[in-house]
Protein backbone atom coordinates (compact mmCIF):
# COMPACT_ATOMS: atom_id res chain seq x y z
CA UNK A 1 0.00 0.00 0.00
CA UNK A 2 2.54 2.55 -1.13
CA UNK A 3 1.62 6.15 -0.58
CA UNK A 4 3.25 7.25 -3.79
CA UNK A 5 0.73 5.20 -5.67
CA UNK A 6 -1.84 7.80 -4.75
CA UNK A 7 -1.61 10.38 -7.50
CA UNK A 8 -2.32 13.39 -5.37
CA UNK A 9 0.66 13.70 -3.04
CA UNK A 10 3.02 12.56 -5.78
CA UNK A 11 1.73 15.15 -8.22
CA UNK A 12 1.92 17.78 -5.48
CA UNK A 13 5.58 16.97 -4.80
CA UNK A 14 6.16 17.04 -8.54
CA UNK A 15 4.93 20.52 -9.27
CA UNK A 16 5.92 22.22 -6.03
CA UNK A 17 9.55 21.16 -6.22
CA UNK A 18 10.53 23.41 -9.13
CA UNK A 19 8.48 26.43 -8.13
CA UNK A 20 9.59 26.52 -4.51
CA UNK A 21 12.85 28.41 -5.03
CA UNK A 22 11.02 30.89 -7.26
CA UNK A 23 8.36 31.44 -4.62
CA UNK A 24 10.95 32.12 -1.95
CA UNK A 25 12.91 34.31 -4.32
CA UNK A 26 9.88 36.40 -5.23
CA UNK A 27 8.88 36.70 -1.58
CA UNK A 28 12.36 37.80 -0.57
CA UNK A 29 12.49 40.33 -3.39
CA UNK A 30 9.15 41.90 -2.51
CA UNK A 31 9.98 42.01 1.17
CA UNK A 32 13.38 43.57 0.69
CA UNK A 33 12.12 46.12 -1.84
CA UNK A 34 8.98 46.92 0.12
CA UNK A 35 10.61 47.24 3.51
CA UNK A 36 13.57 49.18 2.14
CA UNK A 37 11.26 51.54 0.28
CA UNK A 38 9.01 51.99 3.27
CA UNK A 39 11.73 52.33 5.85
CA UNK A 40 14.17 54.59 4.06
CA UNK A 41 12.26 56.41 1.37
CA UNK A 42 8.99 57.51 2.96
CA UNK A 43 8.41 60.57 5.12
CA UNK A 44 7.22 60.59 8.69
CA UNK A 45 3.57 60.93 9.48
CA UNK A 46 2.31 64.24 10.80
CA UNK A 47 0.73 62.74 13.89
CA UNK A 48 2.66 59.55 14.45
CA UNK A 49 6.19 60.52 13.52
CA UNK A 50 8.44 57.76 12.39
CA UNK A 51 6.31 55.07 14.04
CA UNK A 52 4.19 55.05 10.90
CA UNK A 53 6.97 52.93 9.43
CA UNK A 54 5.73 50.06 11.55
CA UNK A 55 2.74 49.89 9.23
CA UNK A 56 4.84 48.00 6.66
CA UNK A 57 5.13 45.08 9.05
CA UNK A 58 1.98 45.33 11.12
CA UNK A 59 -0.63 45.50 8.37
CA UNK A 60 0.73 42.72 6.14
CA UNK A 61 1.26 40.44 9.15
CA UNK A 62 -2.27 41.10 10.42
CA UNK A 63 -3.74 40.44 6.97
CA UNK A 64 -1.84 37.17 6.68
CA UNK A 65 -2.80 36.10 10.18
CA UNK A 66 -6.46 36.20 9.15
CA UNK A 67 -5.89 34.82 5.66
CA UNK A 68 -3.86 31.92 6.99
CA UNK A 69 -6.76 30.86 9.18
CA UNK A 70 -9.19 31.19 6.27
CA UNK A 71 -6.92 29.05 4.10
CA UNK A 72 -6.87 26.46 6.89
CA UNK A 73 -10.65 26.57 6.98
CA UNK A 74 -10.96 25.96 3.24
CA UNK A 75 -8.33 23.22 3.32
CA UNK A 76 -10.16 21.58 6.25
CA UNK A 77 -13.43 21.62 4.33
CA UNK A 78 -11.78 20.10 1.27
CA UNK A 79 -10.36 17.36 3.47
CA UNK A 80 -13.68 16.60 5.12
CA UNK A 81 -15.55 16.48 1.84
CA UNK A 82 -13.03 15.11 -0.66
CA UNK A 83 -10.47 13.40 1.58
CA UNK A 84 -7.43 14.78 -0.25
CA UNK A 85 -4.58 14.17 2.17
CA UNK A 86 -2.56 17.05 0.73
CA UNK A 87 -5.34 19.38 1.79
CA UNK A 88 -5.32 18.21 5.40
CA UNK A 89 -1.53 18.41 5.52
CA UNK A 90 -1.56 21.88 4.00
CA UNK A 91 -3.87 23.08 6.77
CA UNK A 92 -1.54 21.57 9.36
CA UNK A 93 1.43 23.18 7.62
CA UNK A 94 -0.16 26.62 7.51
CA UNK A 95 -0.86 26.90 11.23
CA UNK A 96 2.68 27.66 12.47
CA UNK A 97 3.06 30.28 9.75
CA UNK A 98 -0.27 31.79 10.71
CA UNK A 99 0.57 31.91 14.38
CA UNK A 100 3.89 33.60 13.58
CA UNK A 101 2.04 36.24 11.57
CA UNK A 102 -0.36 36.71 14.48
CA UNK A 103 2.55 37.11 16.86
CA UNK A 104 4.20 39.68 14.60
CA UNK A 105 0.92 41.59 14.35
CA UNK A 106 0.51 41.51 18.13
CA UNK A 107 4.04 42.57 18.94
CA UNK A 108 4.28 45.31 16.34
CA UNK A 109 0.84 46.46 17.43
CA UNK A 110 1.91 46.60 21.05
CA UNK A 111 5.20 48.35 20.27
CA UNK A 112 3.32 50.83 18.08
CA UNK A 113 0.87 51.34 20.87
CA UNK A 114 3.43 52.49 23.40
CA UNK A 115 4.12 55.91 21.84
CA UNK A 116 0.55 56.28 20.59
CA UNK A 117 -1.41 55.29 23.67
CA UNK A 118 1.26 55.48 26.32
CA UNK A 119 1.01 51.80 27.11
CA UNK A 120 2.43 48.61 25.64
CA UNK A 121 -0.90 46.93 25.76
CA UNK A 122 -4.39 48.25 25.44
CA UNK A 123 -7.53 46.18 25.10
CA UNK A 124 -8.22 47.74 21.75
CA UNK A 125 -10.81 45.61 19.89
CA UNK A 126 -8.46 44.77 17.05
CA UNK A 127 -5.48 43.80 19.22
CA UNK A 128 -7.78 41.81 21.49
CA UNK A 129 -9.24 39.95 18.51
CA UNK A 130 -5.75 39.02 17.42
CA UNK A 131 -4.94 37.78 20.90
CA UNK A 132 -7.99 35.53 20.72
CA UNK A 133 -6.94 34.37 17.24
CA UNK A 134 -3.53 33.50 18.72
CA UNK A 135 -5.30 31.23 21.24
CA UNK A 136 -7.28 29.55 18.48
CA UNK A 137 -4.08 28.82 16.58
CA UNK A 138 -2.51 27.37 19.72
CA UNK A 139 -5.46 25.08 20.31
CA UNK A 140 -5.46 23.89 16.69
CA UNK A 141 -1.74 23.09 16.76
CA UNK A 142 -2.02 21.43 20.17
CA UNK A 143 -4.81 19.15 18.94
CA UNK A 144 -2.77 18.04 15.90
CA UNK A 145 0.11 17.23 18.22
CA UNK A 146 -1.99 15.29 20.71
CA UNK A 147 -3.48 12.69 18.39
CA UNK A 148 -1.50 9.72 17.10
CA UNK A 149 -3.54 8.55 14.14
CA UNK A 150 -3.01 11.03 11.27
CA UNK A 151 -6.43 10.64 9.69
CA UNK A 152 -8.25 11.02 13.02
CA UNK A 153 -6.11 14.07 13.77
CA UNK A 154 -6.95 15.54 10.38
CA UNK A 155 -10.67 14.96 10.94
CA UNK A 156 -10.79 16.34 14.47
CA UNK A 157 -8.68 19.40 13.71
CA UNK A 158 -10.84 20.11 10.67
CA UNK A 159 -13.99 20.14 12.80
CA UNK A 160 -12.20 22.28 15.38
CA UNK A 161 -11.17 24.71 12.64
CA UNK A 162 -14.76 25.01 11.46
CA UNK A 163 -16.29 25.45 14.90
CA UNK A 164 -13.43 27.73 15.88
CA UNK A 165 -14.03 29.92 12.85
CA UNK A 166 -17.63 30.53 13.87
CA UNK A 167 -16.59 31.41 17.39
CA UNK A 168 -13.69 33.55 16.18
CA UNK A 169 -16.13 35.59 14.12
CA UNK A 170 -18.51 35.79 17.06
CA UNK A 171 -15.63 36.90 19.28
CA UNK A 172 -14.79 39.69 16.87
CA UNK A 173 -18.26 41.17 17.29
CA UNK A 174 -18.29 40.48 21.02
CA UNK A 175 -14.95 42.21 21.51
CA UNK A 176 -16.07 45.24 19.51
CA UNK A 177 -19.17 45.42 21.67
CA UNK A 178 -17.12 44.87 24.82
CA UNK A 179 -14.70 47.69 24.20
CA UNK A 180 -17.13 50.18 22.68
CA UNK A 181 -19.28 49.71 25.71
CA UNK A 182 -16.50 51.03 27.92
CA UNK A 183 -14.92 53.79 25.86
CA UNK A 184 -17.36 55.57 23.64
CA UNK A 185 -15.69 56.44 20.38
CA UNK A 186 -12.11 56.17 21.63
CA UNK A 187 -9.88 56.61 18.64
CA UNK A 188 -7.60 53.72 19.34
CA UNK A 189 -7.72 52.29 15.85
CA UNK A 190 -4.37 51.78 14.20
CA UNK A 191 -5.44 53.53 11.02
CA UNK A 192 -6.10 50.61 8.78
CA UNK A 193 -9.26 52.34 7.63
CA UNK A 194 -7.74 55.79 7.71
CA UNK A 195 -6.95 57.28 4.37
CA UNK A 196 -3.44 56.04 3.71
CA UNK A 197 -1.93 58.45 1.28
CA UNK A 198 -0.22 57.16 -1.85
CA UNK A 199 3.28 57.74 -0.61
CA UNK A 200 2.67 55.13 2.09
CA UNK A 201 0.28 52.99 0.09
CA UNK A 202 2.57 51.68 -2.64
CA UNK A 203 5.41 50.40 -0.47
CA UNK A 204 2.71 48.91 1.75
CA UNK A 205 1.30 47.06 -1.24
CA UNK A 206 4.71 45.63 -2.04
CA UNK A 207 5.15 44.50 1.55
CA UNK A 208 1.74 42.86 1.52
CA UNK A 209 2.70 41.04 -1.66
CA UNK A 210 5.92 39.95 0.01
CA UNK A 211 4.09 38.54 3.01
CA UNK A 212 1.57 36.74 0.81
CA UNK A 213 4.34 35.17 -1.26
CA UNK A 214 6.27 34.22 1.87
CA UNK A 215 3.18 32.54 3.30
CA UNK A 216 2.65 30.69 0.03
CA UNK A 217 6.27 29.54 -0.12
CA UNK A 218 6.38 28.49 3.52
CA UNK A 219 3.13 26.51 3.27
CA UNK A 220 4.45 24.73 0.18
CA UNK A 221 7.70 23.92 1.94
CA UNK A 222 6.00 22.73 5.11
CA UNK A 223 3.38 20.68 3.25
CA UNK A 224 6.15 18.90 1.37
CA UNK A 225 7.74 18.11 4.73
CA UNK A 226 4.43 16.73 6.02
CA UNK A 227 3.98 14.59 2.92
CA UNK A 228 7.46 13.16 3.39
CA UNK A 229 6.70 12.49 7.06
CA UNK A 230 3.55 10.66 6.04
CA UNK A 231 5.51 8.58 3.58
CA UNK A 232 8.10 7.76 6.25
CA UNK A 233 5.34 6.64 8.59
CA UNK A 234 3.87 4.39 5.92
CA UNK A 235 7.26 2.83 5.26
CA UNK A 236 7.88 2.30 8.96
CA UNK A 237 4.53 0.58 9.37
CA UNK A 238 5.42 -1.72 6.53
CA UNK A 239 8.76 -2.52 8.10
CA UNK A 240 7.09 -3.38 11.38
CA UNK A 241 4.65 -5.69 9.68
CA UNK A 242 7.27 -7.58 7.73
Amino acid sequence: MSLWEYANPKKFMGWTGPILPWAFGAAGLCLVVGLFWGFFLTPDDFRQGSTVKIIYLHVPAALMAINAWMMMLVASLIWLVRRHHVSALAAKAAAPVGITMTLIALMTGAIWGQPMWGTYWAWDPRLTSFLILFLFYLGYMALWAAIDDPDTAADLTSVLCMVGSVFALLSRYAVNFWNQGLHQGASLSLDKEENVSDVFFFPLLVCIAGFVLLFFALVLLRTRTEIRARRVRALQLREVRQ
Partner: protein
Amino acid sequence: MIPDLGKYGFEVASAYAVSILLLLVIVGLSWRQSVAQRRVLEAAEARKNG
Protein backbone atom coordinates in the same frame (compact mmCIF):
# COMPACT_ATOMS: atom_id res chain seq x y z
CA MET B 1 21.68 56.57 5.41
CA ILE B 2 19.51 55.63 8.41
CA PRO B 3 16.72 58.20 8.48
CA ASP B 4 16.28 60.29 11.57
CA LEU B 5 13.67 58.29 13.44
CA GLY B 6 13.28 61.04 15.98
CA LYS B 7 12.04 60.24 19.42
CA TYR B 8 10.46 56.99 18.27
CA GLY B 9 13.71 55.41 17.18
CA PHE B 10 13.60 52.66 19.77
CA GLU B 11 10.04 51.67 18.97
CA VAL B 12 10.50 51.50 15.23
CA ALA B 13 13.80 49.70 15.50
CA SER B 14 12.49 47.12 17.95
CA ALA B 15 9.36 46.54 15.88
CA TYR B 16 11.48 45.81 12.83
CA ALA B 17 13.91 43.70 14.83
CA VAL B 18 11.18 41.56 16.40
CA SER B 19 9.36 41.03 13.11
CA ILE B 20 12.43 40.14 11.12
CA LEU B 21 13.56 37.82 13.89
CA LEU B 22 10.21 36.01 13.94
CA LEU B 23 10.23 35.68 10.16
CA LEU B 24 13.73 34.27 10.23
CA VAL B 25 12.67 31.82 12.93
CA ILE B 26 9.71 30.43 10.96
CA VAL B 27 11.70 30.26 7.73
CA GLY B 28 14.69 28.67 9.44
CA LEU B 29 12.58 26.17 11.37
CA SER B 30 10.62 25.18 8.29
CA TRP B 31 13.80 24.76 6.30
CA ARG B 32 15.48 22.64 8.95
CA GLN B 33 12.42 20.44 9.37
CA SER B 34 12.28 19.94 5.62
CA VAL B 35 15.92 18.92 5.38
CA ALA B 36 15.66 16.56 8.35
CA GLN B 37 12.52 14.91 7.01
CA ARG B 38 14.07 14.44 3.60
CA ARG B 39 17.03 12.69 5.19
CA VAL B 40 14.77 10.39 7.20
CA LEU B 41 12.76 9.56 4.09
CA GLU B 42 15.84 8.80 2.05
CA ALA B 43 17.06 6.47 4.78
CA ALA B 44 13.72 4.71 4.96
CA GLU B 45 13.53 4.37 1.18
CA ALA B 46 17.08 2.99 1.11
CA ARG B 47 16.15 0.39 3.69
CA LYS B 48 13.12 -0.58 1.66
CA ASN B 49 15.01 -0.84 -1.60
CA GLY B 50 18.27 -2.17 -0.19
